[in-house]
């Protein structure tokens, strides 16, 4: 056991510490002497406060996270309620609906690149046939972020659906039966019995999706490259550009430390909510 955990520490904790150390240097790969230069340790963090492009990226991140989490919860919940009947057809359909989520993210990005490229897109073909003049969504500043939100929602609504379906299966049948005997309508059953029962699962699903939305990368990389301008440039993407396009690894490390801290805090909330670790023996 100890060796295994040592390996995990070696490959996760040590690099995190190295990341933290790098964030205290002005590391720039084109200037090797900056590698261990700790003369101004907080310079990168000072830049974080001053960099307006970074602040903009946080705002983009908030918009992206808010809408994708909200839409995924709503659509996933609605579908789960629809599919929660024990017929063979619907059970088969559940598996079909999982496909977007299990596809490699890069394939999802390619799929939506096709749909958003007017020359070959069946969607744009349809719009033209209907006589609508729709701009190329991913190059239009007003639509670029929305088009990412649509693609991301398509990819991840099955996650909420799956979690809610699993929870619904654990719902005590007596509760429903009792309410039915009392004459509750299907809507009342959903509103007053089912929804309160799955509230916790929705919260956990939302938190998982929230953390994942901070990592959004392949869709943005393939569809918009952060553009047009920087309307789809989320913080994670900006950090990637700083590190691997502009070589400012020190500054990028500081941004990434902040992202990592956010991830850890949200993970901690999940651990507390679910109550892992508090083992009953």
């Amino acid at each position: 056991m100890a060796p295994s955990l040592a390996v995990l520490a070696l490959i996760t904790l040590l690099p995190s510490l190295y990341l933290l150390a790098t964030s205290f240097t002005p590391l720039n790969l084109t200037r090797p002497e900056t590698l261990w230069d700790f003369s101004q340790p907080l310079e990168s963090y000072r830049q974080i406060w001053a960099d307006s492009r970074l602040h903009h990226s946080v705002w983009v991140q908030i918009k992206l996270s808010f809408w994708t989490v909200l839409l995924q919860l709503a659509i996933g919940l609605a579908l789960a309620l629809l599919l929660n009947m024990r017929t063979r057809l619907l059970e088969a359909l559940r598996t079909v609906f999982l496909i977007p989520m299990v596809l490699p993210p890069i394939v999802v990005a390619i799929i939506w690149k096709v749909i958003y490229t007017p020359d070959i897109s069946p969607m744009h073909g349809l719009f033209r046939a209907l006589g609508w003049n729709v701009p190329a969504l991913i190059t239009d500043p007003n639509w670029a972020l929305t088009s990412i939100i649509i693609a991301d929602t398509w990819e991840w609504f099955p996650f909420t659906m799956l979690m809610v379906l699993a929870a619904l299966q654990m719902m005590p049948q007596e509760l429903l039966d009792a309410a039915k005997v009392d004459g509750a309508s299907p809507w009342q059953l959903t509103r007053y019995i089912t929804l309160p029962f799955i509230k916790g699962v929705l919260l956990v699903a939302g938190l998982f999706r929230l953390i994942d939305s901070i990592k959004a990368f392949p869709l943005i990389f393939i569809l918009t490259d952060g553009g047009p301008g920087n309307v789809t440039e989320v913080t994670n993407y900006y950090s990637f550009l700083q590190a691997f396009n502009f070589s400012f690894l020190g500054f990028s490390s500081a941004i990434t430390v902040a992202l990592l801290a956010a991830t850890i805090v949200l993970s901690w909330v999940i651990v507390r909510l679910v109550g892992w670790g508090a083992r009953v023996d």
Partner: protein
Amino acid sequence: MSTSGRARRRDRLLMQALAVLLALLALSPFLWLVLMSFKTNAEIFRFPPRFFFEATTANYAALWTSEFRNSFANSLIVSTVSTALSLLIGVPAAYALSRWTTRGGGTITLWILASRMAPPIAFTIPYFLVYRHLELLDTRTGLVVIYLTFNLSLVIWMMRPFYDQLPRSLEEAAWIDGATLWQGFYRIILPLSGPGLAATAILCFLFAWNDFFFALILTRTEAMTAPVAVVNFMNYEGWEWGRIAAGGTMIMLPVLIFSFVVRRYLVHGLTGGALKG
């Protein structure tokens, strides 16, 4: 009574019809890409599309004679080796954590969850810097090691709740008969882990196979994986949609097959048993 029964049956039929319709709608983008991979370039640009077109496998043939074949092999090798290593290191750790954690259980859970959820760039920067010195950039070894960051965590939290459910009396009986700690695990516990182990292995393989970010940064040509290779068709060789679609379809094929096999374990693999709470 019979009219309400009929009404109920009608409602059920309507709901099923709606579900089928939604499934088709949700899947259409995915089906479109698969169809595209069998089309000639002229057919791809045709609108309205013909329902019956002459399918061609030229896109696949072109891929198979290009560098893409090496990248596909890289993906297979790296994902397989990373899966094997994760199981080898992670399964004993999961077992031990399940049996002997008393204090600090919450902290270890948080650590494991956070390693799984951390933005890839948090690991990419330090690994990139270290690999430059160790000459591990653009090597399959380098990828295998960085994939352990998420797969080792995955193994531990998939298998730990599984071992929590196995009664301790099993291996205790073996110890009384004179078996060592290791023998108890190897002879008694491991054979019982079959299905959970298989599902965990498949999920590890999928996560490694699906990775894009690490391979994008840490490989150039030699160790390039299939997801990165497909993107290069977009950038450098013009927009060869047929080949992009064929490459995408090839990448997702193993994923679809494996996901179907482990679909019952997906929730657990993605959330680490959050539902059990």
